[in-house]
């Protein structure tokens, strides 16, 4: 599934707008490290090393066969694993490292795909809530629905999403 985010990332990479690219992914990097380390105060250290590794990749002008988003998550995976293995996390990723679209489960996925088999209206409600961050009241106003119907759709979507996330994770 192609996504507007991936297209915009490709444009930012091509035009060298690295600050904007890092600004997009900084909260993802930090929050994923906090989650992976279960809230340990080391999480920001690991996140800093992830950013350094990405910086070295960007500075080296590397190009990738997968969306930059996948590169970010692969570097996080790698760095977190090294942290738990007790290895140094502040060294560059190995020369010649290249994330592949074949060996990752992140590449083709976006959260919308996890709720794809919900009824269309539920899917629309869930996407507005979980992807755009709209409140139930805002969704009701935008879609011309009763608030109760929005709450029920969100409940179904939450159950589905939680099952899908648990299966995926």
């Amino acid at each position, binding site marked *: 599934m192609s996504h507007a985010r991936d297209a915009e990332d490709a444009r930012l990479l091509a035009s060298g707008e690295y600050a904007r690219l890092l600004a997009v992914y*900084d909260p993802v990097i930090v929050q994923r490290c906090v*989650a992976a380390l279960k809230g340990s105060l080391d999480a*920001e250290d690991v996140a*800093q090393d992830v950013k350094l590794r990405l910086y070295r990749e960007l500075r080296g002008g590397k190009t990738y066969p997968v969306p930059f988003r996948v590169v970010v998550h692969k570097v996080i995976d790698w760095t977190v694993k090294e942290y738990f293995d007790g290895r140094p996390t502040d060294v560059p990723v190995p020369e010649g490292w290249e994330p592949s679209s074949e060996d990752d489960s992140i590449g083709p996925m976006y959260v919308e795909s996890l709720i794809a088999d919900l009824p269309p209206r539920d899917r629309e409600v869930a996407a507005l*809530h979980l992807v755009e961050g709209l409140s139930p009241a805002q969704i009701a106003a935008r879609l011309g629905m009763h608030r109760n119907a929005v709450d029920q759709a969100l409940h179904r979507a939450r159950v589905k999403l939680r099952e899908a996330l*648990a299966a995926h994770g």
Partner: protein
Amino acid sequence: MAEDVGRLFDEYATRFARGERPDLRAYLDRAGEARDELARLVETWLCLAPPPEPDEDAIALAEAWLRGEAPLAALRARRGLRRAQVVEALIERFRLDPARRGKVERYYHEVEAGLRLPAQERLLSALADILGVPASLIPSLRPRPLRAQAAFFRAEEPPPDIPPVEESAPPDEVDLLFRERE
């Protein structure tokens, strides 16, 4: 009492989607025994959810980081604050002895330079109020090391006019505020 993990996840995910920086550690604490389950849900979610567009602050902080400058200092500058004003605000907020202003300034410089982590909740909260950002953002605002260093290296040495804080004397109120969780 621990809160329902599904509700916590939903609240966290929607706030993240809005471009906020929700304090994940606080959510994990609220989950109680379901802490690990919530952490797994959030981590998987972050792999799959499209990140929100960054605001101008976030881009300016990334630019500072790329230049090797201190993002916290860049944020302070964006707020039109001098370091002395932040120091004064901290002295006032915590009713510190004004005679210890120099020490507060040295400590705060170390925080900006990434040499000291502001782990005390009350200090994070004060800096967040002064700089107008979520407290959970501040620990990640560290400069990019300018050359290869060991993992614990955080930034260049402080300039000669701001000597590092001596830690051999018994800790006073300023030390207790700035030193990492003990």
